């Protein structure tokens, strides 16, 4: 699959932080087209903040500075609320980590999946209903007619994530940002959900930004990887090149993956002092 030539997302010298104090994201630059890119790092590396800044969902106390930050041609630094509202959910959608908390506990599944359609498309009630049912089937959920009357507290984790996916994709956006979509799931579910994301994104010719701390996951499902550490991007490489990574941090992360091969052996740890000096 060839990457689109005009980048969908462009970030240049993006800095996020509290007005005083060390910046949490320190002048990073990247470009993402209609491809599957992963942003990996430990907690605190700034990867989640970067993703949220692309949707304008940063906490109000954080300040954002960039010499360029654009998504689908929109300058994200100077958008009005109404422009944000049409962009979010319309052109770019988000899937979050834990469906237990990310779904509204007092509204039915059907209502929540339908909401993006109400906000972004002009369809009749019956058309919306049809789309909702079709979408629920597309994410692999059986009995959509029953499901739309349920409430989130009656769902399992895997189902909840599929519903979040349905919510994100129902308006056929051009790009999907997935913020640790499988971290709250059990191991068996993780691969299923990620494969589902990969398939749907491919079918709909979308771009994907996957935030993760799991390199194995990333290697299996993405084309490109950006490695973040303490607010900076330390390494960029193709996913298939991960086993042969040259940066020590990437190497350590790769070597740290627990698997049958490492069973019983001590996993390598990172020498952070050495890392500080590495460009």
């Amino acid at each position, binding site marked *: 699959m060839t990457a689109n030539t005009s980048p969908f997302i462009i970030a240049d010298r993006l800095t996020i932080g509290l007005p005083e104090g060390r910046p949490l994201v320190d002048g990073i630059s990247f470009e993402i087209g209609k491809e599957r890119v992963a942003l990996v790092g430990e907690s605190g590396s700034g990867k989640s903040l970067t993703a949220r800044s692309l949707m304008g969902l940063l906490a*109000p106390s954080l300040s954002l500075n960039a010499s360029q930050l654009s998504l689908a041609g929109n300058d994200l630094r100077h958008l009005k609320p109404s422009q944000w509202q049409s962009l979010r959910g319309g052109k770019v959608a988000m899937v*979050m980590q834990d469906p237990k908390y*990310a779904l509204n*506990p007092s509204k039915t599944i059907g209502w929540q999946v339908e*909401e993006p359609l109400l906000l972004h498309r002009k369809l009749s009630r019956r058309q919306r209903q049809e789309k909702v049912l079709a979408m629920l089937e597309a994410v692999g959920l059986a*009995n959509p007619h029953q499901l739309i009357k*349920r409430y989130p507290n009656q769902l399992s984790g895997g189902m909840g994530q599929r519903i979040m996916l349905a919510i994100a994709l129902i308006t056929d956006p051009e790009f999907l940002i997935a913020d640790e979509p499988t971290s709250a799931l059990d191991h068996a579910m993780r691969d299923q959900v990620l494969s589902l994301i990969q398939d749907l994104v491919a079918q709909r010719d979308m771009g994907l930004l996957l935030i993760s701390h799991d390199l194995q996951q990333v290697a299996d499902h993405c084309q490109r990887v950006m490695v973040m550490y303490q607010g900076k991007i330390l390494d960029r490489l193709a996913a298939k090149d991960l086993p042969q990574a040259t940066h020590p941090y990437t190497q350590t992360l790769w070597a740290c993956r627990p698997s049958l091969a490492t069973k019983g052996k001590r996993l390598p740890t990172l020498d952070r002092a050495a890392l500080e000096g590495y460009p």
Partner: protein
Amino acid sequence: MAVSASSSGRSMPIRRLVQRLAGNLFSLVITLLGLLAFTFTLSHLSPVDPVLQLVGDHATASTYAQVRHQLGLDHSLPVQFWHYLQQLAQGHLGVSQSTGQPVADDLLRTFPATFELATCALILGATCGIGLALASVWHPKSWIDHIARVISLLGYSVPVFWIGLLGLLLFYAGLHWSAGPGQLDDLYVYTLEPKTGLVIIDSWLSGDRQMFINALQHLWLPVVILGLLSMASITRLLRAALLEENSKEYVTLARAKGASRWRIVWHHLLPNTRGTLITVVMLSYVSLLEGAVLTESVFAWPGLGRYLTNALFASDMPAILGATLVIGSCFIIINALTDALVWLTDPRTR
């Protein structure tokens, strides 16, 4: 691969609903019994000996014993309690020592005035309180938010009788915007035909426009004072609940869907604070009933509260206990109603 949903009690069957209601009712009855046990105990702890009151100091021992037997005081306590309950069931609350009337009649006479005051204050307080809380969450950390916090904290900490006095000083003695204590001017008090017992409604029904305006002029100040109290506690609690919901993940997801601020407040925040909202408003109503005890004293409002305070000054035991019983029962019933209302209106129990 398809994943099917587990069906775990999607809607509450009628049998469980009835069971739950029965449980609530049972709690209600137990709590009422507790209150009755309390008033019964108090009436026996009273230093006033009811037998002596009837027979006087110079009665003989046999007269004393006879009257004691007549009053049923020679029975054991549980039996006396049972008699007490029986009498209550027939509506006998004793006779007031100050008015000479049956306490039950006195209470019926004075209840509407308190109801009028508390209900109007609640309507005012709830409207302003909910509005202010919503304004706070609409513009977090703005000047509106800060004013909301300050007003609610002050209103929560101010003694109602004091602000009532100051209110009278400013608006009655000073500006003459209020007609002062009482429900109506003396001129109208005796010409009003009591149809519903609620002065505002009765004066409207009488067709005398001057009387109605006068009633309003008497009503507005105590209602505003009590409404301020109500608004303070409603804003304080609702604002906290709304802000807490606002920081949750599902609100971020709603924003990520492109929802507007109005949509988030109406469709996401409010449905999830519904329980808190109902509880807070009902709680405010009950505390208004208590606040009325103090406010009616300041405004000479002829309601239950004033009846109670007069009885306190006169050490009129039957009246004190009767009023306590009624106010306490209102408290208990409204609290029980709140619980039932919260889970009945939960869409997930449908």
